[in-house]
């Protein structure tokens, strides 16, 4: 069962992504990003409705090292990690239906 959205930091990122048996969708966001705010409630809904996937987020302001490591150059960027490796990358805010369609194969 998915248990809400956790905040990842430099020290928890690798452990969380590496240890997860289910795919992890990571939302790279920041407080000053309007489109990020638009998709935040959508991700919360998906977290509640889709037990097969885990959702986490990285605040790029506070953890710019993680953003750099994955070459995030635009937010919101969503990266889906499977078995610890990036498997899918989505740039830009999208409505819920489109988002679910994009990640459908991992649900």
């Amino acid at each position, binding site marked *: 069962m998915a248990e809400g959205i956790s905040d990842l930091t430099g020290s928890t990122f690798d452990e969380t992504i590496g240890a997860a048996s289910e795919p992890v969708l990571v939302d790279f966001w*920041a407080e*000053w*990003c*309007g*489109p*990020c*705010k*638009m*998709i935040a409630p*959508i991700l919360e809904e998906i977290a509640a409705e889709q037990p097969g996937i885990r959702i986490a987020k990285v605040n*790029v*302001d506070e953890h710019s090292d993680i*953003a750099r490591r994955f*070459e*995030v*150059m*635009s*937010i*919101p*960027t969503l990266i889906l990690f499977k078995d610890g490796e990036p498997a899918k990358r989505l*740039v*830009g*805010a*999208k*409505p819920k239906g489109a988002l679910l369609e994009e990640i459908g194969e991992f649900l």
Partner: protein
Amino acid sequence: MSSTREVIIIGSGPAGLTAAIYTARANLEPLVIEGEPSSTSDQPGGQLMLTTDVENFPGFPDGVMGPELMSNFRAQAARFGAEFITAKVTRVDFSARPFGVWVGDDEYRADSVIVSTGAQSLMLGLQDEERLVGHGVSTCATCDGFFFRDQEIMVVGGGDSALEEATFLTRFASKVTIVHRRDELRASKIMQDRAFANPKIEFAWNSQVVALHGEQRLEAVTLEDTTTGQQHRVEVSGLFIAIGHRPNTDLFVGQLDLKDNGYLITDPDSSRTAVDGVFACGDVQDDIYRQAITAAGSGCMAALDAERWLEAQSH
């Protein structure tokens, strides 16, 4: 199919939400189909969702953040009973009343419709542009500027939004070059003064971007001199596009009268369109002023026009 409403508002920028506040307070129980999340300005809240400090909206002496202002507009409309659907209208039928508005297969009917779908940023239309969006090419300085710390970047455009973006981007970038097709700007005096005074901003006059280079991410662009046609390559990691807007009127082609440039036509001193009972407000019908405050003002006009029109119909 749900029952017929008195008014449906399409779009939720300053114009649509002001129309929502006024029609809600007039007990017209507006349904606002506000749009869907996107990283373009074609999203709930509209163009202000992609800005930071708004300094010219009256009532905020210290300025206000664009997204915060729009969230306040929306809360004010909701307080008076406006209902919201977070989705994009896919089709309209204004040929008979009650008018039809569709979101996919969901059909909504209303005696009157207020169109406030706004405008969205133009792209350059270059090959590779779409592929490189999010990888160095951006239309949202506030979303992406952060990632270009200490880098040399470019802004394309010569209007207020280009200069505002360039000025904002100097918070991060080491140098911002404004690429403009002509040798003078059309931006307002205050924005020009700010840009000229900023030591990090340079200008590439009489220039246009004609090609983008880079596999995984943007690495360089080709600039062409608009007077001589000479081309040269410039290394750059970020390209921000602010060359203007086009109205979101694709939905209304064949239904409402459009100007040659795509903007909706409204009667002088009114929000009335060519179709009785359909009103338009905000940037979708304004190719002159295009300000949050003028959009809000015209949203109020549309609400009052719709209210009076509905009242006249019932007599």
